[in-house]
């Protein structure tokens, strides 16, 4: 674990907390997957087909339809230390719905994908070729201020966001 990743991870956790999310720093990839399974419990889940998540679904109650799932498990292309944002892209193995439709989103992210600031994550996305059909920047839980400008968390997007970081390599 490099000192640089350590600093970025701590700042990420602090920033995500301010926007309603929870960060867990796992000691290893296996420990990260174990933590993801712990958050899911016996609830119906959808899990993306991704090398980072290989084996994550073992023993979980996976379902096909994200609308019947209570937890969605994905990874992210980048995570922003300054804002607590995740950069998520979609393709055949990464449905748009995983990080959106279930009320709980769990993201498992290796620490070498941490970047300092928001424009750095946009640059990661801008460098993808071809540009994915769906990309999202996700910063915390869904929220609104539409009633008397009072902040309420948990609207159409997830009401809970758990980010599990682990040392890369």
């Amino acid at each position, binding site marked *: 674990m490099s000192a640089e990743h350590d600093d970025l991870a701590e700042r990420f956790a602090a920033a995500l907390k301010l926007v309603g999310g929870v960060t867990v720093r796992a000691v290893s990839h296996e420990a990260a997957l174990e933590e993801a399974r712990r958050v899911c419990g016996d609830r119906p889940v959808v899990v993306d087909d991704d090398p980072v998540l290989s084996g994550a679904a073992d023993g979980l109650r996976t379902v096909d339809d994200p609308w019947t799932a209570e937890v969605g498990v994905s990874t992210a292309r980048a995570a922003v230390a300054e804002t607590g944002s995740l950069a998520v892209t*979609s393709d*055949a193995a990464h449905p748009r*719905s995983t990080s959106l439709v279930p009320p709980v989103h769990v993201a498992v992210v290796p620490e070498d994908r941490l970047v300092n600031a928001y424009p750095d994550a946009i640059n990661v996305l801008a460098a993808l070729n071809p*540009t994915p059909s769906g990309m999202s920047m996700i*910063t915390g839980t869904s929220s609104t*201020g*539409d009633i008397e400008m009072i902040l309420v968390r*948990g609207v159409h997007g997830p009401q809970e966001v758990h980010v599990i970081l682990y040392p890369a390599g």
Partner: protein
Amino acid sequence: MNAETPRSAALRNRDNVQVDRPEWAAADTPPHRRPLPLVTREAVARPQARATNDRLIDTNHRRNDDKWPPHMAALRERASVIRRETLRDLDGYLGQLTRSVEAAGGHVHRAATPEDARRVIGEVAAAHDVGLVVKSKSMVTEEIALTPYLEERGVEVVETDLGEYIVQLADERPGHIIGPAIHKSREDVHKMFNELAGEELPGRPEELTAFARGRLREDFHRADMGISGVNFACADTGTLTLVTNEGNGRMVTSQPRVHVAVMTVEKVVPRLADLGVLVPLLSHAATGQKVSGYQSMVTGPRRPGEPDGPDELHLVILDNGRTDIVGTRYEEALACIRCGACQIACPVFRTLGGGHGYDSVYGGPIGAVLTPLIGDRSEGADLPFLSSLCGACADVCPVQIPLPDMLVDLRADYEAGGGRAPRVAWSLWSRFWAWPAAYRISVRGARVAARVPGLVRALAGRSALGRGWARGRALPPLRRAGDARRWFARRSGDAGGRTEGGRGER
């Protein structure tokens, strides 16, 4: 579709919601605009206006007292350059955007007028046999009056942004660019939701939000078509970017089988990488967040093998007179990124209790500038007078649009164009007053008339012109008319020949 069996779960029993709003706040602007002074007088007099004003003053202090810390000021400079760079070659970037979106598999429709835009969207809906549309917040769809058009064709349209959902139920227009229900109290919302539910619901904002979430969720899942606006359309990649907090934008662009995105020409930006500057700046200016909750970046429809996302993506690019503004002294108005900060900062907007008092789709300083310039330039020519020219709008503008200068220039345009009668009246009056005897007679007359209560107003009310003029204006105390001038005259007499720093009036 059969109107008696609406397919939307969110709009079920919407007829039970009691609509209590003036005509000028209606979702469909009435075909004949009433004189602006009448609308503003009513707007200010509504009890809700005071409560809204109080909330907005509070918000203004929180957001704008320390608006541009050094790192944000730097972003502001960069964004201002990016937006002006775009406007210098608007046609070029729109051409590039069109090619990029088409290369990604999307369909692009250029619409010169609101009628063109409505027709295209209606055709897409008909071709896909669409019965239910979920819509995310978009001002341009208000500008083209899209919802009533689709409803007339049997398509049900559900607003999914919480604020938009509230004003849809209330049959009102959005009262602010990004806070559509800014003029509603939690009690107003509670009452409407109770009527909708047919039972007494808990009334805290969290509970009201949860109720709306529950009703809208089913519609996201079942809708045939999603309609969204666009915050930034990136020309290099054809990526349509939506900035939201609730997640409805992500739902609308990913769940239905057809996605129609509607934008105005100036929403184009050169590069995807520009989002790194524009999104944090928009977030800061709009809501004071470091970054808004979600940026949905859509590049074409779903690709082969992808399990979700729309089968078809249509981008409608509306002009409605905007390209005619390019190259004029109002060009920078098109740099606007629709954060709504100028509205919160504007004392006139706040006093009116929100945007409805402008009797136009766009209210506040940016609305007062934009409305007279778009379309066939026949509407809202008098809106630039709804400003105290205090300059707060320019201070908070994230892309440094010189709004006060434009308001002044638009007033001059208005005077040069219409409004002949007041100009003639003023010029006669000034000639009359330039004659000392006439001045003295009129001042004495005013002091005498002021002793008879109601006389001045009654006299003014005798002519149509006088009535129009007196409306919405308060009469100054006339009993002491001329006192100030007499005081000055006495003082300059006492001062002898002293002319320090000025001209001695002899």
